[in-house]
């Protein structure tokens, strides 16, 4: 396994320059014998210009082979991207004399003279993915290099050598043969792309595949040596063309820069002048004409940019991917009866300029996308149809459909104009002309003018942005139609409509939103009473004020507590967002709390979605929620550090759009809302809603009092005891102990306490109680404290938060001692015979009143 030693080049790195790195290369490995060490050295250069002439030559000090070698490349992210002079750019010559050197992905851009030089006959070198540019020398000069098995390889290089300069100068200079393998290079040179040979007695072996010459000339051979030439699929111009034995098909070609369609028959190599990339065009005759890596293993499987190259065919040159340029269609002089057809044009700036279209000609159905677009159909005569152009995209750019001179009987068609600023301005529409049904999205204006009698304005649909409908000068008997405008600020400003003209039936929606409505006492609240209120939203993002604090003095802490009931209509697994906000009296949100409520078949799951803060500086000190039961959730938030003094703080609920039922706002049921500040005692008024009548309840628990007891002596120390609880406000029976049996041998018995449905409340005794039999001759039973549960008998089931403690101070029970009939009578004379039935809710702040 080869150990790769990476060294960095650049400011603050291992070496400030390539020269210093090269000078030290023999000191980097364990020794200079990389083969023996099983090591390889990789130099990675940062992006930037390196003004130096680099010569990689150790004079034989370094021992390398094809895998234990030295690579010069760029750091991650410092590639040239196919652009000359970009990335890690050597502003000077790079000379390689060391065998098995790899130079990969660099830019080489000398100010003068040759750029990439190979000399002293190294073997097995590879130069790949380079951007090489020179203006006064040869881009690649290889004096002598390679062997039959280890040729010098140059592949995937993008080469620019303008003026009289050449791309490659391949020689066999000195004593010995030279072997070169040149594959997939793009060469844009003023003179020959390839200059071959030198006056020598040696043999020069040159193998070329997939090279693309887009400069003035392709090939020139010197004389006086032996050339063994092989290869295929090379493309170049007709001046000094490639030898036919290595030429592709078609070849020669005519290189044309920045052209999508030459417009004249021929064999073309269409390329982008800035990069040399081939253009994606059906007129580009060299696309796909190279041999692919599956057919020739010398063809690299990636291109200069790392894009994949595969299959039996490929594109010639360094770039495998094609570039898309802006096409222009300019049909002129279309005579009568001719059809323009249905061209489809995609990306870039596009101009369709159809001129001189005579009567009866059809403009067709052009589809033009992206960029700033102008469709200018002029001089359309009577009976001609403008067609149905579709113009889309170009947000922020101005798009214009300007159909002028449309005579009577002509149809404007149904243009569709999408985002950006668009204007459709058909002027001078005569009688009988139909404006059509334009569909306009985004910020648009429709400005039909001079609409004459009996003309119909149509039924335009405008949505989004701020639309305007400004028909003017509508004479008598004309109909304005039935435009529909939705959302945003809309204006309908028809002017000058005389008598008897119909304006139509425009429908405008949006604008002033309907406030939510509050319906009190809709369902049973956690206190077991029918006191929970429902907020219903007609429009989204409207809110109702729930609570308000008194004026603050700054730096105070505010707590807000409330219950809300999850919408039981939510489908299993779905969710909704409940938004509560605390605002100052000016309406600024100082804290917004979003609750995500997920619902399943059993219980709701409540999670805090987000809390946002605005205004003058609240922070959330505490934020709590408890999903209790029966879909009720108790919430509490405490805010501190409010810096705005003299402000009332209001709590609001805002209608949110339904998550799964778009366009609807959830109804919310609330109870027990209150705002407190911790540094003072809230007044009763502050614990109540200040608008909307949301919660109309007694903040303190109901008290049910008055005890009536009865007693039946069954003999043998058995008694029957009856206790009746009576609501002192309604005087209705509230609960009753139906039965009690006491045996003198027993001291613990169970009392069954039940009641008919009264105010939707049922009371059950939860625990055994100790009741002492009446003392002989004594007046009463002794009943200690009894604990009960309160059951709601309404449709909503149990409300366990209202577990209550009933104070049976039993010494005050009374009864009649007459055996037989049960008599209910207010206890006497034992006074104070009250059972205080406390049904406390757990208040928002967790306390019980």
């Amino acid at each position: 396994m080869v150990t790769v030693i990476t060294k960095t080049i650049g400011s603050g790195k291992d070496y400030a320059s390539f020269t210093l790195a090269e000078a030290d290369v023999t000191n980097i490995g364990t020794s200079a014998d990389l083969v023996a060490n099983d090591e390889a050295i990789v130099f990675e250069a940062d992006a930037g210009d390196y003004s130096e002439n680099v010569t990689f030559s150790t004079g034989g000090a370094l021992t390398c082979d094809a895998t234990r070698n030295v690579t010069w490349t760029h750091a991650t992210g410092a590639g040239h991207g196919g652009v000359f002079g970009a990335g890690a750019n050597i502003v000077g010559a790079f000379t390689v004399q060391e065998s098995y050197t790899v130079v990969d992905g660099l830019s080489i851009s000398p100010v003068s003279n040759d750029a990439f030089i190979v000399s002293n006959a190294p073997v097995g070198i590879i130069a790949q993915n380079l951007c090489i540019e020179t203006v006064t020398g040869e881009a690649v000069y290889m004096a002598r290099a390679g062997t039959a098995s280890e040729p010098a390889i140059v592949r995937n290089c993008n080469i620019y050598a303008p003026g009289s300069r050449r791309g490659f100068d391949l020689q066999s200079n000195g004593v010995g043969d030279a072997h070169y393998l040149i594959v997939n290079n793009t060469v844009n040179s003023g003179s020959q792309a390839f200059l071959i040979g030198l006056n020598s007695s040696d043999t020069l072996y040159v193998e070329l595949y997939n090279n693309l010459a887009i400069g003035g000339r392709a090939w020139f051979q010197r004389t006086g040596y032996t050339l063994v030439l092989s290869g295929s699929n090379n493309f170049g111009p007709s001046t000094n063309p490639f030898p036919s034995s290595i030429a592709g098909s078609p070849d020669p070609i005519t290189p044309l820069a920045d052209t999508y369609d030459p417009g004249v028959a021929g064999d073309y190599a269409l390329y982008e002048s800035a990069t040399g990339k081939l253009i994606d065009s059906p007129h580009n005759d060299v696309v796909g004409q190279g041999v692919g890596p599956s057919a020739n293993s010398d063809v690299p499987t990636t291109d200069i940019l790392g894009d994949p190259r595969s299959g039996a065919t490929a594109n010639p040159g360094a770039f495998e991917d094609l570039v898309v340029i802006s096409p222009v269609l300019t049909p002129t002089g279309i005579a009568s009866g001719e059809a323009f057809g249905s061209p489809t044009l995609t990306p870039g700036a596009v101009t369709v300029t159809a001129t001189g279209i005579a009567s009866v000609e059809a403009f067709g159905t052009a589809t033009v996308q992206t960029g700033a677009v102008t469709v200018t159909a002029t001089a359309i005569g009577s009976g001609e149809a403008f067609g149905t152009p579709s113009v889309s995209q170009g947000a922020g750019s101005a798009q214009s459909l300007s159909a002028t001179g449309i005579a009577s009987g002509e149809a404007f068609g149904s243009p569709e104009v999408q985002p950006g600023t668009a204007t459709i301005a058909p002027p001078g529409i005569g009688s009988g002309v139909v404006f059509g049904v334009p569909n306009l999205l985004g910020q648009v204006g429709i400005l039909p003018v001079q609409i004459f009698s009996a003309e119909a304005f149509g039924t335009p649909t405008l949505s989004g942005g701020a639309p305007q409908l400004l028909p003017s000068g509508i004479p008598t008997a004309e109909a304005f139609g039935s435009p529909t405008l939705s959302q945003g600020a809309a204006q309908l400003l028809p002017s000058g409509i005389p008598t008897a003209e119909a304006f139509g039936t425009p429908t405008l929606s949006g604008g002033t939103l309907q406030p939510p409505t509050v319906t009190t006492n809709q369902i049973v609240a956690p206190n077991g009473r029918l006191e929970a209120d429902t907020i219903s939203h007609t429009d989204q993002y409207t809110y109702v004020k729930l609570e308000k604090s008194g004026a603050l003095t700054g730096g105070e802490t505010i707590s807000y507590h409330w219950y809300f009931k999850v919408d039981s209509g939510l489908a299993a697994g779905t969710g909704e967002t409940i938004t509560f906000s605390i605002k100052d009296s000016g309406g600024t949100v100082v804290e917004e709390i979003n609750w995500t409520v997920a619902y399943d078949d059993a219980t709701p799951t409540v999670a805090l979605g987000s809390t946002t803060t605005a205004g003058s500086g609240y922070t959330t000190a505490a934020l709590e929620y408890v999903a209790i039961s029966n879909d009720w959730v108790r919430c509490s938030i405490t805010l501190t550090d409010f810096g705005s003094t003299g402000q009332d703080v209001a709590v609001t609920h805002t209608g949110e759009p339904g998550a799964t039922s778009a366009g609807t706002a959830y109804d919310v049921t609330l109870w027990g809302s209150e705002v407190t500040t911790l540094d003072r005692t809230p007044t009763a008024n502050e614990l109540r809603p200040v608008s909307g009548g949301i919660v109309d309840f007694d903040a303190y628990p109901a008290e049910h009092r008055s005890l009536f007891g009865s007693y039946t002596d069954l003999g043998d120390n058995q008694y029957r005891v009856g206790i009746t609880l009576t609501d002192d406000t309604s005087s209705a029976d509230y609960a009753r102990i139906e039965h009690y049996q006491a045996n003198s041998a027993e001291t613990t018995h169970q009392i069954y306490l039940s009641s008919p449905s009264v105010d939707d409340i049922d009371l059950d005794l939860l625990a055994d109680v100790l009741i002492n039999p009446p003392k002989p001759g004594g007046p009463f039973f002794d009943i200690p404290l009894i604990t009960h549960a309160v059951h709601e008998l309404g449709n909503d089931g149990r409300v366990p938060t209202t577990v209550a403690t009933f104070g049976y101070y039993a010494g005050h029970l009374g009864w009649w001692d007459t055996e037989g009939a049960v008599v209910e009578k207010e206890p006497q004379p034992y006074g104070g015979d009250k059972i205080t039935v406390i049904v406390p809710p757990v208040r928002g702040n967790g306390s019980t009143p």
Partner: protein
Amino acid sequence: MAHALIITAAPSGGLTYSDNDVVQVLDGHLNPGGSVTGTSSGFAFVYVSDKEHDDPDVLALMAPWEGDLIDPNDPDMRREQLGKRRYTVTLADAAHLTWVDADSAEAAAITKTWAEIQALTGDKAAV
């Protein structure tokens, strides 16, 4: 105040340059790199107090050592390159083997005037 930094191949430094060859001239305020400034890096350093790093006289020290044209009658023939550098600057004092930054160079006694540098400069082509 030092300006240009001349970096040479110290004798027995193991570099790819011949002993005392001028490897590179840098702006004296640049750090040549962590592997160059390290102890016993094989490089030698001297600051030139009266020349900038882009002065043509200083840059000329990095000229390659080239021989004559192989065939002076062939316009495509190039000169034979005999070595990486034509010029040497011999820095005998061991102080030059340790890099210090420009501000400390004078105190470290590795700053010389251009005249002093010229006196230490050798030309292989003149031999």
